[in-house]
């Protein structure tokens, strides 16, 4: 039951993130990426089994207590992924805000100076 609930949560968070990423607002796009990253982290977390409150510490004969403890390795992976994702999201928001300040708006459709816009006759324009 709790596994199904977690799966639904992951799906909901990923869907919300995807919706934001496909929007035109640049800050929304970056926040959406953060949400998708969070969904990926939850998924990774679930890969190591959920449930069981026993600490992941084996002292007695090997394998005795393993059944009801969660695998700590994916949790360590999630921790790493959170740190990386946090840094990248911060960077992305700073980038989007800087773009907005330069051009006056943070709109995905206004991003046209890195690639040459097509000329009237269909040929590519001149790139600076």
């Amino acid at each position: 039951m709790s596994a199904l609930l977690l799966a639904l949560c992951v799906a909901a968070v990923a869907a919300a993130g995807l919706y934001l990423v496909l929007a035109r607002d640049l800050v929304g796009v970056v926040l959406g990426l953060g949400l998708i990253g969070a969904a990926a982290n939850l998924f990774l977390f679930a890969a190591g089994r959920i449930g069981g409150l026993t600490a992941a510490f084996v002292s007695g004969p090997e394998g005795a207590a393993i059944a009801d403890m969660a695998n700590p390795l994916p949790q360590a992976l999630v921790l790493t992924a959170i740190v990386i994702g946090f840094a990248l999201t911060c960077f992305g928001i700073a980038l989007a805000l800087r773009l907005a300040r330069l051009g006056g708006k943070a709109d995905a459709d206004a991003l046209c100076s890195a690639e040459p816009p097509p000329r009237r006759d269909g040929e590519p324009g001149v790139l600076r």
Partner: protein
Amino acid sequence: MNGALVVAPVLVPLLGVLVTLLAWRRPGRQARLSLACAMLFAAAATALLSGTVGGQVFEARFGDWPAPAAIAFSIDRLGAAMLTVSGVVLVAVLLFPVHGGGPGARGLWLHPMLHGLMMGVGGAFSSADLFNLYVWFEVMLISALGVIVIGARREHLEAGLKYLVLNLVGTVMLLIAVGGIYGLSGQLNFAAIGVALDRMGEVPLAQAYVALLLISLLIKAGAFPFFFWLPAAYPNLPTPILALFAGLLTKVGAYATLRVAGQIAAVPAAGLLEALGWIAVATMLVGVLGAAHHWDTRRILSFHIISQIGYILLAIALGTAAGLAAALFYTLHHIVVKANLFLIGGLVRRVAGSHDLRHAGGVFRSHPWLAALFAIPAASLVGVPLLSGFWAKLLVVRECFAGGDYLWGGAALLVGGLTLYSMLKLWSEAFWKPRPEGSPEPSAAIPTRAWLACGGLAAITLAIGVHPQPLLDFSMAAVSAMPLAGGSR
């Protein structure tokens, strides 16, 4: 084996980051230190290559944990060859003088971030742990982003944002795939995952996760239909940096695809090769058509990267020993050629006054030797005999026909023809056409260091072209142990 050498691909660039940061006040000294660290990287990679060439594997398990539990580095012939060619390209790129690039903000941070990028590249080629591979991809991503936006003009920031969004989607997919594969196999070590997946056989869930893993790597490699970040981000970089990006970054994705499909997940990936082949064909075609359409040298060459990635992926998709060897041969030759083309493209821009072919011309008359130098990598990219690209294309096409994949082989030949067309357009416009009215006078002579960098890379291309057998034998030997090529675990 030698423990210090196996971590050198990561530690040497880390040293590069530190010393170039410490020398930030003096741009001249910073550049010299940076070049010295690049040479050290190339030397360490060469030492690794000479150590592995007989089939030995350099291994290190961090923290001295037992085999499958430890995060491990493992450098075999495949990884060592990629490291060596990366080192060579890095030295050439740092040897190449930045045009008009006074110190200022760019000079200050550029070298530390370039070495940070190399740390990611070195780690990705050395790692034997799937999650660790993901981390190195992230190191590469953040350093590359820093380099892209360092100019801080609007087009740089836009290029950076496009690069960030598309590549971040890729890394999130990579993370999900890593998590899924861990959930299935309980392993992260390449060898241990391979054993576990082999035992499972063709489980649909394993295939789904491996497909997701391959898709995320294809985003990194710039394959169809995930390549849109590449022509958006690359052309806004200054010449030598552009050459480094063009030579290395997508090829790390290609290397990882080869590693996953050929070695780690050979059994689940075998069912996906057909799809990979068609993706490769689409990548080749779309890339070369984009190149034929554009007029800006940097964009033409950027689209050529995509097209050539298609050849590498096609060779992997053939799934035979000769196919995988062709993929490795192609990748090694292509890194050198592509980096050189971008370096010489920068020189042409310096001489002709514009990247746009409509405003350039007359270079053959004013700088015949530059034209001759450009002709070597350009002809090699097209696949003219007696140059490295000819053998690479021959290997791929021959293996296509040998396996009965006539459509794929035909597509590869067709794309070769189209590559010739777009390269001839570049040649006749920039070199043969008389200089258009109103374009600036050709600028001064080309610095010696630029001749050295480009000439050295061109010499490698020529050497492979004239005497391909050693590299061919090496490529065959490097992939012979891969399960997809019929090797055993």
